[in-house]
């Protein structure tokens, strides 16, 4: 069902390959260290319109508009960005817009900044309460299967799917000074 994971590719390559496979044509994001490689892959992909946002909430509207126009869209955000979207998520649930959201986690494993913890610890619950199916990935070898299944559920069933990429997967933020 899914393209087999090539063990030599990185997990952002795997996610991008699934975007290509299911025909994602718009990707909204706020610049993020954890998503930096995936963002660069989308920017370099002529099939994908990359839309840099001032706040993640804008991306929810983008997804709805893309779907009205017949295009599939994905959102990339940090866990803190989920909190910026809550009311706007109503749009997806209320109208049945399929959506895949990839979330890089902060405020958990190895987090040095306590200010990230309050949102990081409620991110998955907030998504569930907002109507999302949520899946969590701890290790790179699970990315292919979970992202593949998530994309299929989002776009075959007009469901809202969120995939949480754990801080253990992406690594804690590195501070050099």
């Amino acid at each position, binding site marked *: 069902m899914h393209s087999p994971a090539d063990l030599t590719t990185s997990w952002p390559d795997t996610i991008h390959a699934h975007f290509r496979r299911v025909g994602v*044509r*718009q990707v909204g994001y706020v610049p993020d260290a954890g998503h930096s490689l995936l963002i660069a892959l989308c920017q370099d992909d002529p099939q994908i*319109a990359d*839309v*840099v*946002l*001032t*706040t993640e*909430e*804008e*991306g*929810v*509207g*983008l*997804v*709805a*508009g*893309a*779907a*009205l*126009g*017949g*295009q599939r*869209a994905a959102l990339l955000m940090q866990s803190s960005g989920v909190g910026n979207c809550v*009311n*706007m998520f*109503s*749009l997806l649930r*209320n*109208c*049945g*817009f399929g959506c895949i959201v990839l979330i890089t986690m902060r405020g958990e494993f190895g987090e040095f900044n306590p200010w990230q913890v309050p949102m990081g610890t409620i991110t998955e619950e907030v998504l569930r309460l907002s109507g999302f199916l949520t899946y969590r990935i701890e290790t790179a070898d699970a990315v292919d299967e979970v992202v593949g299944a998530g994309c299929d559920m989002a776009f075959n069933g007009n469901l809202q799917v969120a995939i949480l990429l754990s801080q253990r997967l992406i690594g804690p933020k590195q501070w050099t000074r």
Partner: protein
Amino acid sequence: MLDRRDFVQHLLTDRGDLLVVPGLGSATYDVAAAGDHPLNFYLWGAMGGTAMIALGLALARPERRVVAIPGDGDILMGLGSLATIGVKQPKNLVVVVLDNAHYGETGMQPSHTSAGVDFVAVALACGFRKALTVTRSEEAAEVRRLLHSGEGPILVNAKIKPEDVPRVLPLRDGHAIKDRFIAALNAR
């Protein structure tokens, strides 16, 4: 200042293939009053998201003309979206703000535009190709022309009278509004 119903009616006369996204509240009622149409994506919520929905649609369908019609409160709540649109430069997108400088749905409290916040200046600073304020009904014909053939992104700040007009309530079921819109878009 403009009569909101007459102005919107004029803009949407002989609308052709226009795709229209009105913001929640009075803007949705104004667009409904101008005549129900399957290519209206009526919003009853998602305040602050109108312009971004229109952007996603404009990017998905570059061969079609897309018009967002939010109120001033809607734009204020999503002011950053003007920056996002400015970065993306969609040629087929026009944002027409129905600016009565008040929050009509909640009891006509003054909005930031009452205190002088200027959407035209914001839009130009964000890189919109064109932005203008209209205050007189004679200017509606030029705005209508921009909807159909102006090179976007364009913002029109339409100064409308802060008056209560009878509500015209369109379809409210979100799935139905979406499905009807998509079916009509794919039929043409």
